[in-house]
């Protein structure tokens, strides 16, 4: 373990503990910025899609991983963002503004969901989010006003200074920028009082209340932020699929978001990104695997579902700290070599105290 000799509070407040890490992240940034110029267009767009997934994942991570509010219907916020983006662009609103509107609209609906959230316990809240998502999807599928009367709502491809932003290299950089922004905002929050309030809500709402955390407002804020980020992801997702139908934002998408968060590691922004990368690699892998499997294992959706489900089960049982946790363990192994002890990461079992009145 690298030891940090601390002489000022800033070392704790800063985003990165070790000065060398800035170098690593700078190199990563440089790589990501330069990549589109070196690799084929197909891969650029795949990578851009991973960024979009990661944005959604970060949003859900804030809500579920850090505030402990389970949202089983997060796709609803992506849906709202997507449709707002489409309608805004079709109405002639310039691109960056449409994106902001998508985020705000989704955030506003998020507050709406956050308000009932106060009175509902974790379990009922999860079910309520599921019901909410189903209703939203239904509304957008059937309400002519929202779908502009078309079965598939086409999404305009905006351009600034001749560069297309809804596809290709322009899209890549936009997605990367929004992802970087979301990550930065989230990390900032987490080192400030509000982020700590989120964690307090997750770990002990009762103690949080006695320390002055207003449950209602904080939950609503968590929902709003998470929904807004989801809305941004949805708006970008709209460009990727370029013609919208409410079906694209079904329960499967909510599940994918949940998977990213759990597989990545709850309570870690790094985990949110790792989870997105994992999923981004998983889908093409499943598609390729289909070529090698007997034709009886048909039905792409069946195979995908089974794989997702099994992976979720696997991670909950065997890798509860997710990829971020595994990454931390591997890093510790190499840094502490040969003194690495497996017990270093052994979490004392924090037993669930029953929620029931005895």
């Amino acid at each position: 373990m690298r030891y940090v000799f601390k002489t000022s509070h800033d070392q704790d407040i800063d985003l990165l503990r070790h000065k060398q890490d800035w170098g690593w992240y700078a190199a990563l940034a440089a790589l990501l910025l330069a990549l589109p110029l070196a690799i084929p267009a197909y891969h650029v767009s795949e990578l851009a899609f991973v960024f979009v997934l990661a944005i959604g994942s970060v949003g859900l991570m804030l809500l579920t991983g850090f505030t402990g509010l389970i949202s089983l219907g997060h796709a609803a916020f992506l849906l709202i963002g997507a449709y707002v983006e489409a309608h805004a662009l079709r109405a002639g609103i310039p691109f960056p503004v449409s994106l902001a509107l998508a985020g705000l609209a989704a955030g506003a609906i998020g507050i709406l969901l956050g308000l009932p959230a106060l009175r509902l316990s974790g379990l009922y809240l999860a079910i309520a989010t599921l019901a909410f998502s189903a209703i939203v999807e239904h509304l957008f599928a059937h309400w002519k006003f929202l779908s502009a009367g078309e079965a598939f709502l086409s999404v305009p491809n905006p351009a600034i200074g001749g560069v297309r932003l809804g596809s290709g290299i322009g899209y890549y950089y936009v997605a990367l920028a929004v992802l970087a922004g979301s990550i930065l905002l989230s990390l900032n929050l987490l080192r400030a009082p509000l982020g700590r309030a989120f964690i307090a809500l997750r770990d002990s709402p009762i103690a949080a209340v006695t320390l002055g955390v207003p449950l209602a407002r904080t939950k609503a804020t968590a929902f709003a932020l998470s929904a807004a980020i989801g809305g941004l992801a949805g708006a970008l997702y709209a460009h990727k699929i370029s013609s919208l139908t409410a079906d694209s934002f079904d329960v499967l998408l909510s599940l994918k978001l949940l998977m990213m968060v759990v597989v990545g590691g709850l309570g870690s922004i790094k985990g949110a990104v790792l989870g997105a990368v994992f999923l981004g690699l998983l889908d093409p892998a499943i598609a390729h695997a289909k070529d090698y499997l007997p034709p009886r294992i048909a039905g792409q959706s069946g195979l995908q579902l089974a794989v997702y489900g099994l992976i979720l089960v696997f991670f909950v049982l065997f890798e509860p700290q997710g990829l971020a946790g595994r990454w931390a363990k591997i890093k510790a192994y190499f840094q502490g070599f040969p003194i690495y002890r497996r017990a270093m990461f052994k979490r004392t079992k924090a037993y669930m105290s029953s929620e029931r009145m005895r």
Partner: protein
Amino acid sequence: MSLLRVDDLSLWFGGVRAVDGVSFDVEPGEVFTIIGPNGAGKTTVINLLSRLLSPRAGRVSFDGQNLLSVPPHGVIGRGIARTFQNLELFEHATVMQNLLLGRHTHRATGFVSEMLFLPHVRAAERAHREKVEAVIDFLDLHRHRDSMVAGLPYGVRKNVELGRALASEPRLLLLDEPAAGLNPEETEDLAFWIEDMVADLGVTILMVEHDLALVNEVSDRVLVMNQGQAIARGTPAEVQRDPAVIEAYLGA
């Protein structure tokens, strides 16, 4: 003027009178202890004072102002902090984060500036951390500063909860069985800390306790409860001679 006045406080659930017409005053700068057999209603009184429960009858005033009109999350803003009998720590956060949450009531930054981490947010963070350092010094938590709470020994966890309450700079500290589960050395430390808190930090303490040695050592006045009612009050010595108290503990 008394810091805390409790007048005829009552709470009943169905046929059970958890707290039955309890009245007492707590003076500033004193250590006031509530003792009594299990099920006497002591923790319920604490829960009522921290507004996690609402009484069916009675009045409570803190610093001259009605406390019963304050919502649960407003109590700490009035200057009342508490600890829990069974510890309510933030398990998946570090000791530092737990203590910093004690500062939440002094939060002066809005969420937009926090998202952007503007310079005044950083300055506020530094100030909060300075205060928390004082608490870490006071309770000797240096070694555990960056440890996740979940794996820490029981005595340390109790200290973290105490520290978290102290970090809020309270006027009145409600302690629910602070010595439960502590070994004799730790209990001695606790006694010193209680005295230091009153002398150096100007905190008034209202605690519920079973460890009579500790009660004798630090308390200025004691209230004895049994089956929801206050049956005796006075100095520790007076109360222990009271026949009603003796009967409650030993008799029937």
